[in-house]
């Protein structure tokens, strides 16, 4: 043990001996009355008002946080969300977009290109079958 340790041990042990010497007896501690020390307790009106205000504030915040928007119930809110249409939906309708909604139909009639018939068997110009 260093000199410092010895000095600290001596002083703290002395402190403990003094505390022990002034201790009430074991029986006195075990059997002391357990009544609350209420005589020195007083309610300050200001502190009471502050505590009440804090409780009211907390209750208001809780109500605001959990209130459904625009007075709607939760179920009503879900339905209105499903029916909602974006205001810019019209910008998505581009010219010719109706082509994507149907399957094109091909005609069996011959297609005439520059006076020639594209019918099979009529390969030469002006030659008819």
């Amino acid at each position: 043990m260093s000199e410092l340790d010895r000095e600290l041990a001596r002083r703290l042990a002395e402190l403990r001996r003094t505390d022990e010497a002034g201790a009430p007896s074991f029986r006195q501690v075990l059997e002391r009355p357990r009544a609350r020390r209420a005589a020195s307790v007083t309610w300050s009106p200001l502190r009471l008002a502050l505590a009440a205000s804090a409780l009211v504030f907390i209750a208001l915040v809780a109500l605001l946080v959990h209130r459904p928007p625009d007075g709607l119930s939760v179920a009503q809110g879900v339905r209105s969300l499903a029916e909602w249409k974006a205001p810019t939906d019209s910008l998505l309708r581009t010219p010719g977009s109706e082509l994507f909604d149907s399957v094109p139909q091909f005609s069996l009639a011959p297609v005439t290109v520059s006076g020639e018939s594209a019918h099979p068997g009529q390969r030469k110009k002006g030659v008819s079958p």
Partner: protein
Amino acid sequence: MASGEIEAELERLHGAGFAWALACCRHDREEASDVLQTSYLKILDGRAAFAGRSSFKTFLFGVILKTAQEARRRNALRSLLLQNWSRRREEPATSREPEDRIALLSALARLARRQREVLDLVFAMGLTVEEAAQTLAISVGSARVHYDRGKKRLARLLGSGGRS
């Protein structure tokens, strides 16, 4: 341990227990007596059971420390809401107290809580650092760090008259 044996052990360690309760309660005698009584009742009615994993002294000191911490929390909440400063007020040093005792108490009050507790347990209560770690429910390594730093700081404070 039988109930009679437990009571006999408590009575045997009563002086040391009171000194430790005082250290845990910032030397408020009334609070220390309340804490010590509550600790005794907890042990005697089985709410705090000695399992034999440490010495009975270490176990008792641990119960006293925990009870003092609970009392401090209750008092802090109560004094926050109520105009009751008598429990929180430090017992003023009177001119009847020896000066070196006042200086030592003042220096101890300036240490970090864990450092003060480890030094009290090791130097004043005669526990080893390992037993102090068990009482405080911290690791032995942490207890050694608190012990070393607490010792150096306490020596500095006592050397400078508690001013630094």
